[in-house]
């Protein structure tokens, strides 16, 4: 590879799982696992530069060309519709986007109050069903909304459902499955095609290997 490829990794467990895939593919970077305040890590031998960013920001870094590639959840891609290539479903970080709440509130007639971090996904879903809704955009603790009467239901990602159960809520409908995707900037894909497609194949191979 003769051009450096910039990769935005999501901070947290998902990012670490993905970074393991890079390591398994022989594309790791010294210092990445050390606990430091360093933000950018470069492996000049493999021509890769990594940086950790907030998971919901990865798609922005890639769409705007600050990163050539990145790893983002399908939830973020559906919510913000960034203009990027979605090169591979890595099959990790699996969960579901669901409507959750209590049956009696879900069945009530009239406008449904929906609390969510994902207003676009929720709006599209309920519009498809022809149901009148009132979106309440929250940034966290979504499960609290139906418990204290802020909303009738929530639209959120559900991994195991434990938090819902512990709060006497349940999954009412599954909107779609979610997993982590390898994404690429459209212009970078043209100008760094060889490097990006080679790396995408390596990571896809590592993802398949991890699943096998």
């Amino acid at each position, binding site marked *: 590879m003769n051009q450096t490829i910039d990769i935005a990794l999501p901070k947290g467990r998902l990012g670490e799982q993905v970074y393991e895939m890079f390591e398994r593919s022989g594309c790791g970077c010294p210092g990445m696992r050390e606990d430091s305040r360093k933000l950018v890590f470069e492996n000049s031998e493999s021509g890769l530069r990594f940086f950790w960013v907030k998971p919901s920001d990865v798609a922005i870094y890639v*769409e*705007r*060309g600050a990163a050539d590639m990145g790893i983002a959840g399908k939830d973020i891609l559906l919510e913000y*519709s960034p*203009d*990027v*290539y*979605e*090169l*591979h*479903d890595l099959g990790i970080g699996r969960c579901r986007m669901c409507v959750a709440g209590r049956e009696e509130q879900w069945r009530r007639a009239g406008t449904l109050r929906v609390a969510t971090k994902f207003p676009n996904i929720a709006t*599209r879903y309920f519009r*498809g069903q022809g149901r009148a809704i009132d979106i309440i955009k929250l940034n966290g603790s979504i499960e609290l909304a139906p418990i204290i009467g802020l909303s009738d239901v929530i639209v959120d990602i559900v991994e195991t459902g434990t938090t819902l159960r512990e709060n006497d809520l349940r999954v009412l409908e599954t909107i779609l499955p979610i997993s982590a*995707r390898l994404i690429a*900037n*459209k*212009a*970078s*894909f*043209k*100008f760094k*095609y060889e490097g990006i*497609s080679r790396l995408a194949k390596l990571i896809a191979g590592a993802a398949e290997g991890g699943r096998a």
Partner: protein
Amino acid sequence: MESILRPEERLVRGLRALYSRYGYRPYRMSKFEEYDLYAGNRSFLPSGSVITFTDTNGRLMALKPDVTLSIAKNLGGEGAAEKVYYDESVYRAPDSGLGFQEITQAGLEYLGPVDAYVQGEVLMLAVRSLMEVTDGWVLDLSHMGFLCGLVDELGLRGPERAELLRAVGGRSVQSIRAVCAAAGAPMEPAERLAGLVELYGPASELLPGLEAAARTEAERRAAQELSSALRVLEAFGCGERVNLDLSITCDTEYYNGLVFKGYVAGAPSAVLSGGRYDSLMRKLGKDEQAIGFAVYLNLLERLGESAEAYDADVLLIPDGEAPEELAAAVRELTEAGQSVRVQPGTAGTARCRRVMKMKNGRPVTLESDD
């Protein structure tokens, strides 16, 4: 003259000269258009929002959100081919969160009989437009004949079709398979679509294989049209760095043939976009064929931005001398080809190559970047 032009002004000047050389004439249009035109063709616009206002005679008007639609509506219909170019501002909200923006674009439109030469010439002008911007460019070609045939064969409608087109545009082979499987669509055309979307590389290398693998008459015609346009492009000496990318998606209601996008190094998204839009012409009640493209000048603002840009060559600080002495010093410097900014006190935020101060009626250099 050249040095006082901003990069985008230099570029527009270069593009005008380029399009004129091939017989395109300038086209100026009003900033306003009746809103009905956009209301009836909302999905042609890259984003739906339009700035509207009521005219003095009570008509609902719109500040132009798009140029092609206006040209297609206002020109043509008289038999003879029209070749026009423009550089205009349009107003739309590419991101609803950021509100309306002024988007500057330059481009050309051809309305009339479209043959292989016309398509090749338009592609050549697209390539040369990219060359005007920078040396690092790529032009990607596709043909709606492939996409339309396969998408129709899959029989998806409404939100499922929209999701499939999103997957195609995102080059997501797995999503294409997943959408088709979930909708119960036949998997053979789904696999063919996935295979085509995965293709990317030099058009001259990939087109022979694509032509040989064409399965329907529409696909064969599409491959042949791409090959003939490429041959014309090569005859113009512009066949290098032209790639085949069948993941380019455009609204199938308006675009019907060759479609293309241009990228330049340093810009994160396509800076040029164009294609054949006979279907739009038919929708507007016209028989002509049409093809054109636009260069999005606002995306080029940051390219080649120089950190060393100066407001003037010389910052001249007066020192209580007579105004005539100051004027004589300024005249001497400007006649020597230097730009001069006279400013009492210090440089402040002004960026100047050289700082001079008047001393005994003569300018003396205090500091210089040279």
